[in-house]
């Protein structure tokens, strides 16, 4: 009996957190309007969310592309189809790996930083201090970060994808001797703007929305102790990564499923 009661309580607390997350999202979206008059806040957050994530995105994009080129070559060369390597690299990056891996890296790099920052603000009572001064902390602190994350994610995914394609090109053409013209022309013939590239961009927009939302909510909802902040940061990375992979399946089924 006691156990069932506990289980129910836990279930309720899960739903309560979900509900709080929704309300938090509405609140922060409501704070968007006031950002028009203060674009400086967003620019500063774009710097810490976007520019600081650039290094990890650039390096991993190039390496993921190079690995794809190497692995794809080994399989394709058996069928004498190594000219299709460009198609393979570009399609897998544009449709899947670009948005997903960039979002996972973004969750680890920028998402955890957002959670820790806001959680620490809460633990050191900066947020309550703002409320005392009649400044809405969601509007002042959270909304600009959300907008910055929402803008950064598609750009980071696009940079990741393009560098991945060039990484694959670097392995395929100079190292493995795939024909230069066939690499590009087959890629351009088979990668469709609407079916592939636009869907990839839609994916990265959705991931940016979800990851930033989770990161900000976890920070804002953290227990205001050092342990609570550390737990919230871990939760951000785990939940955001799971959400990215789950949403990726749903979006892929919607976009490319028969």
């Amino acid at each position, binding site marked *: 009996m006691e156990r069932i009661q506990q289980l129910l309580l836990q279930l309720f607390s899960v739903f309560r957190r979900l509900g709080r997350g929704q309300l938090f999202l509405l609140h922060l979206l409501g704070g968007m309007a006031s950002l028009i008059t203060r674009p400086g806040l967003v*620019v*500063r957050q*774009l*710097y810490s969310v*976007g*520019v600081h994530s*650039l290094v990890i995105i650039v390096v991993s994009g190039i390496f993921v592309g190079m690995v794809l080129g190497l692995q794809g070559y080994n399989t394709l060369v058996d069928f004498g189809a190594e000219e299709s390597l460009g198609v393979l690299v*570009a399609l897998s990056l*544009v449709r899947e790996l670009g948005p997903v891996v960039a979002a996972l890296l973004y969750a680890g790099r920028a998402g955890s930083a957002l959670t820790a920052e806001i959680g620490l603000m809460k633990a050191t009572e900066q947020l309550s201090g703002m409320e005392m001064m009649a400044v809405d902390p969601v509007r002042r602190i959270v909304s600009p970060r959300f907008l910055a994350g929402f*803008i*950064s994610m*598609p*750009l*980071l995914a*696009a*940079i990741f*994808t*393009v*560098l991945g*394609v060039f990484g694959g090109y670097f392995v395929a053409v100079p190292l493995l001797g795939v024909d230069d013209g066939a690499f590009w022309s087959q*890629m*351009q*013939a088979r*990668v*469709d*703007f609407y079916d*592939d*590239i636009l869907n*990839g*961009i839609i994916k990265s927009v959705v991931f940016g929305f979800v990851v930033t939302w989770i990161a900000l909510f976890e920070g804002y909802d953290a227990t205001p102790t050092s342990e609570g902040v550390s737990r919230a940061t871990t939760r951000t990375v785990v939940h955001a990564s799971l959400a990215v992979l789950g949403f990726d399946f749903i979006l892929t089924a919607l976009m490319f499923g028969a």
Partner: protein
Amino acid sequence: MGQNRTVEILVGLFMGLGIVALLVLAFYVGNLSSYNNDTGYHLEARFDEIGGLKVRAPVTMAGVQIGRVTAVYLDNLEYRAIVEMKIDPEKLSLQRVTETGEQPLNQDGDPMLIPCGEGAPAGSEIALFPECATVLYEDAAASILTAGMLGEQYIGLEPGGGAMVFLLPGDEIRMTQSSIALEQVIGQFLFNQVDKEN
């Protein structure tokens, strides 16, 4: 203040880099540049069997892409597939023809090609058809071909030449050859083998 400026510059660079990446994706990796939509004239053709031909499949002549398939649907009366294609006039040009739809001749009696939009050359007294015709003859042929053994299917056009009358934009190409299904060819081959043995 100086700190602020660096931040702004770096953010601007980041945004610029992202937008350049999006443009590279659209134009260099993808094929957005080949979507110059509204230019081009239509032709259609009816096939008994189109196999795996899809909308946006290439239309080629002598292996050079000159257009794309824009629609595929069924003719409910004849139970044949109608394929509509759009041809890029920069690749397969339109021309002026005489009132009877034939190619104008010059003083020596040789046929000449007057691109659409230009009048008859000075000195010649040729009554030109007010509209533009394609450079395909009326007995032009369209066939559904396959790239390689298992590749994509596309349409190959042949210009014809027996008739001296030209197709107009929007006309139907009457000589068509359906796609060849590999299964049928193999089936026929096996059938013939059995016949020979008996």
